[in-house]
């Protein structure tokens, strides 16, 4: 059977490849849960995951994956008008943001914004996480306005 389905011809966004450090993050994401590492010794959270806790340098390190509320505030952003990854070309212009999660000062996640108009972009804008299909069973966190 032949197909002319456009989605099969179009390059896809890169699919995350889970590894020793990230497997649990992607497993939880596929269930619709955003999580970060949390140090079992001092409670300091890390995203992306790390080998050693910057908060207390516990040895051996003890990190667990702990869900977050998914709520945060817009810390900074860029409007991508020229995608360097072919799989994102059809989405331009799109907004990539740093979202500061409410659980910890400076705990930021880089992700796309979903349905946030450019004129609404402002430092501190309340956001909440959603997930989109990332391919091969993965789910990618994106953020939408918390009031939408």
């Amino acid at each position: 059977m032949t197909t002319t389905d456009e989605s099969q011809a179009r390059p896809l966004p890169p699919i995350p490849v889970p590894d020793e450090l990230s497997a649990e993050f992607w497993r939880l994401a596929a269930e619709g849960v955003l999580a970060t590492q949390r140090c079992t010794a001092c409670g300091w959270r890390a995203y992306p995951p790390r080998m050693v806790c910057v908060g207390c340098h516990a040895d051996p390190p003890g990190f667990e994956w702990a869900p977050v509320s998914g709520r945060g505030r817009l810390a900074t952003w860029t409007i991508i008008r020229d995608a360097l990854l072919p799989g994102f070309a059809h989405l331009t212009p799109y907004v990539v943001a740093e979202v500061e999660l409410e659980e910890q000062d400076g705990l930021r996640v880089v992700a796309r914004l979903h349905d946030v108009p450019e004129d609404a972009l402002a430092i501190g804008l309340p956001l909440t996480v959603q997930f989109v299909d990332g391919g091969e069973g993965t789910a990618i966190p994106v953020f939408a306005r918390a009031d939408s």
Partner: protein
Amino acid sequence: MSGRFRAAGEVAIVGFAHSPIQRVADDPLGVLTLRTIREAVADAGLDMTAIDGFTTGALFPSSGGRPLRDGIEIVTSDWIVDQLHVQPRWLCGFQGLGQICGSVILATEAIASGAADYVVVHRAMYNPPGRYHANPMTHASGGDQWSAPHGFWGPPTHMALTYTEYQQRYGATREHMATVVVGGRAAGSQNPWSHWYDRPLTRDEYLSARMIAEPMSMLDCDIPVTGVGAFVLTSKERARDLPHKPVYVAGYAQGRSQSVNGVPPWRLDDVEEGGRAVGRILWENTGLGPDEIDVPQVYDAFSPFVYLWLEALGFCERGEGFEYVQDPGTSPGLTFRTGGGAIGNGRMHGVPQMLECYLQLAGRAGDRQLAGVETGIACQAAPSVGGVVAYST
């Protein structure tokens, strides 16, 4: 000078050469590099047989996902030594960012310690076919899994996050940045080797430039080029016998790798905090201060770096860089980068900054020679992760 760096004034740049800067070079990069090194050695009044040390920072930031081949996309000092078929006393590669600064630091320490007498520092830059940072990856592994699946890819997008936060926090606009970019291009348009030779830019052209990753436009990024810079360094004693006025290494400082969170690499708070630390180390090591620097060549591969370096090194206060560069009393737009920097020359990764320090302090800057200049600094990369070297006469 009463800095902590005891080798201040002990090691000098004694010669240089620069290839043409082209989008596509006429020769393979390795051939161009060997030729430029030979020209630099001749410029220093030396024979190649005198060179007993070689170093570079070969790291090439983007290859479109292709493997890197020595002599083609990159040129290491090992490759050079292999072609020359010599056994140097000292051979060392710099690993990290702020590649030209790191190479000068290694060379200085080798000469000051006696590990080498005459060292060639080179930097070879290559513009690959296709789009510079474009990457056809279908899967994202390792560190890339935290950026690429989000459509976040390439240094201009990293810089855009930093720049938006800077603009929002301090009130900087693209109109402010026009002064920086137009100034860099005005200076670069006077350099015969520049990609932008005889091609200055107007404010309107800057303000209407195509956006890549807002607020970063095409013209906020240096243009990818192929080109080579090479310098010869030796001890102050040996420098006395050579034809050109020596320009001495007065001290240096290096940043430290990436931010705590890694993605993105240049979070504004990290750049400001790390940059201030680099500034403190620089002034402590050199015994100098920003008021004493005649030729401040801050890094500008992405235009916001100009503000961030000026603030990091204390030329102005945090958050005031964008206003500082507007003031014709302190900056006619050219003051910081009389050589044109990366925006004015092309993506040469800190070579324009180092070269301008050398040319001005050696009295070899031709039509743009400044009077009475005795000190300079040359910066590369983000203040928090790169490097800065101070020079003196």
